[in-house]
Structure formats: structure tokens, C-alpha cells
């Protein structure tokens, strides 16, 4: 399949909670490939969740490599059935989303997180992340529950029109 179209609001699919993936089978691996291919095809995209490509499963890809705000960096990271284990030290920062291409918003997120999920090899993976990578993980985790950054913006004046997607 490779690069897939990305759903955008107001598509209601983005607001649905996703179902568990369970065992990592050929279908799950194909999904992982599509997530990574689609993420790579978009300039400056650092993460993509399955619901964004129309798949209602708990899976996402994240890669913050080379981002100037990143500290921890696990490279290309695909997680199935991820869960937030720990979240600390919230900070407000500006976020965007491929599924809301015309807006950005200020969102408070933890800057230190521990996320546990299943990797592409089927083994449990525990990821400790901070700064920008933590924000990316939390943003993608939200997608799996049908939450978008618009649901979390910090105030009535924290939504902005985006000039250029980059």
C-alpha cells in the first residue's frame, strides 16, 4: 500500500477511539509500513497515528530525528497498543497536526513520559522520552482515543491559523 491519504477534520473518523491490535501479524506489519511511508512522504511530519490514515487500530509511528526541539530520540518508532505509564512536568507549546492542516494551537503536555507498547518484532517495548519526543508520543496517543490537539488547547486564544505547513 505505501503512502496513504491522510484524513482531515471535520472527518468524524478521527474522533473515534481505536481498537486494540493484539498479536503483531502480517496485517499489523503492513500498517506499520504504511504509517512510516506516509509519515516520510510529508515534509517535517514527526508522527502519524493509524486513525489518520483511516485505520481504527491502536498503532502509531513517531520519528523526531533531527528536530531542533528534540532531546531524547529513539529514531523511527512504531508502537502497537501503546499505553502511557508515566507523565510528568507539563509545559505549554505550539502543536500542529496533518489532520488539521490550517491550524496550530498551544497545548500543555508532559515533558517526561514513559510509554509501553509492542514493537514491530512483537516484543514489549518501554520508551522513556522527554521534550519534543514526549510531546509527539502524547499527541499520537491522543489520536488513538479520538482526541485532537483542538480538544486540549490551553485557552480561547490558543488556536492560530497556520501560514505554511512545514
Amino acid at each position, binding site marked *: 500500500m505505501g503512502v496513504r491519504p491522510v484524513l*482531515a*477534520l*471535520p472527518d*468524524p473518523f478521527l*474522533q473515534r477511539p481505536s481498537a486494540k491490535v493484539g498479536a503483531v501479524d502480517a496485517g499489523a506489519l503492513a500498517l506499520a509500513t504504511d504509517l512510516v511511508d506516509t509519515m516520510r512522504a510529508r515534509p517535517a511530519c514527526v508522527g502519524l497515528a493509524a486513525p489518520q490514515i483511516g485505520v481504527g487500530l491502536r498503532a502509531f509511528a513517531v520519528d523526531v530525528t533531527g528536530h531542533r526541539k528534540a532531546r531524547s530520540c529513539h529514531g523511527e518508532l512504531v508502537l502497537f497498543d501503546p499505553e502511557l505509564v508515566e507523565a510528568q512536568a*507539563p*509545559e*505549554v507549546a505550539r502543536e500542529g497536526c496533518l489532520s*488539521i492542516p*490550517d*491550524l496550530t494551537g498551544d497545548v*500543555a503536555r508532559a515533558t517526561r513520559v514513559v510509554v509501553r507498547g509492542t514493537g514491530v518484532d512483537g516484543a514489549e517495548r518501554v520508551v522513556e522520552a522527554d521534550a519534543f519526543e514526549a510531546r509527539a508520543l502524547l499527541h499520537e496517543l491522543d489520536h488513538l482515543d479520538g482526541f*485532537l490537539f*483542538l*480538544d*486540549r*488547547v*490551553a*485557552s*480561547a*486564544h*490558543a*488556536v492560530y*491559523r497556520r501560514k505554511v505547513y512545514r
Partner: protein
Amino acid sequence: MTHFAVAAVGADRPGIVAAVTRAFVDHGCNLEDSSMTILRGQFAMMLVVDAPEGVGAPELEQALAAPAAELDLVVTVRPAAEAEPPPPDSSWRVSVHGADRPGIVHGVTSLLAERSVNIVDLSTRVVGAPGNALYTMVLEVTLPPGSDPTGLARDLEAKAAELGITCRLHPSEADIL
């Protein structure tokens, strides 16, 4: 000193704020809270000014007549009662988004009004192509004493489902620092 609420709206161009505030300076008024922004090319100013003895609404209106005429602004001035400070701990945020359609703001705010929920701040954005436009609204609200936020959240979600949109109630983030 007396407080006045002043509103001015007109097609955006450089110099509106300077021209309007000059009228206040000339009359010894202090600017207090204000909110000014461009809404689709219209510059909207809302402000509260503190005027000295002897300066009333007619004097302010007269002082504002010249900049209003020059810049094609609609200006209103009215006395403002002293505001009660809001209770510190009942602040909530409502996030609304969905396909643009008439009646979103009215539908959500009518439900809030029925519950005596007070809107403190509200802003909306419409983006995207006509026919598939996304409407977003974020409100900061205060709940009256004894309210049931869980019930309100449920009713807001039901109202949102009726309107085909998403509506979520969250406690406002506590100040982080």
C-alpha cells in the same frame, strides 16, 4: 473615576488604535482591559477606560467622532458597572470542532446559558474549503456553585452529537509556574 466600555469596529488599516486612543489621552482617560483583533479584515476593538470627573459618555462620543469619521469606524460608548472579580477555582474550558454549519455557537451556548454557565472568553475559527470547512470554537467558562461538571460534559456531548460536532469540557489548566 468612572468606567466606560468602548467598542469600535471598522475595515482594518494602520493607525486605528493610535487614533482612537488619542481621544482618551486628550481627555485624561486611562485604558484598562482591552481586546483588539482582526476578524476577516475587520479590526474590532473592545476596551474599558477609566475617565476622570466631568468626562461622561457624551464627551467621549464627541471626542471619538473625528477618528470614527476619518477611519470609517462604528463606535459605541457606554458606562460600565464595576466588575466583580470571578471566583478563582471554577474555570473550565469547552473545545468544539466539527463540519461548519449554522447554529453551532448558538446550540452550544444556549445549553450553557440554561445551566447559568458564564462565558468568560470565546474565540472561533473557520478554516478549509467551502463545503468541507472546519469550524472550531474554544470557550473559557465558569460554572455556578454546586454545578455538576460530569453531567454538563455529558449534556454537551449529547448536544454536540445532535449538531454533528465534537464538544468536550475540561478543567482549565492550572497555572504551571
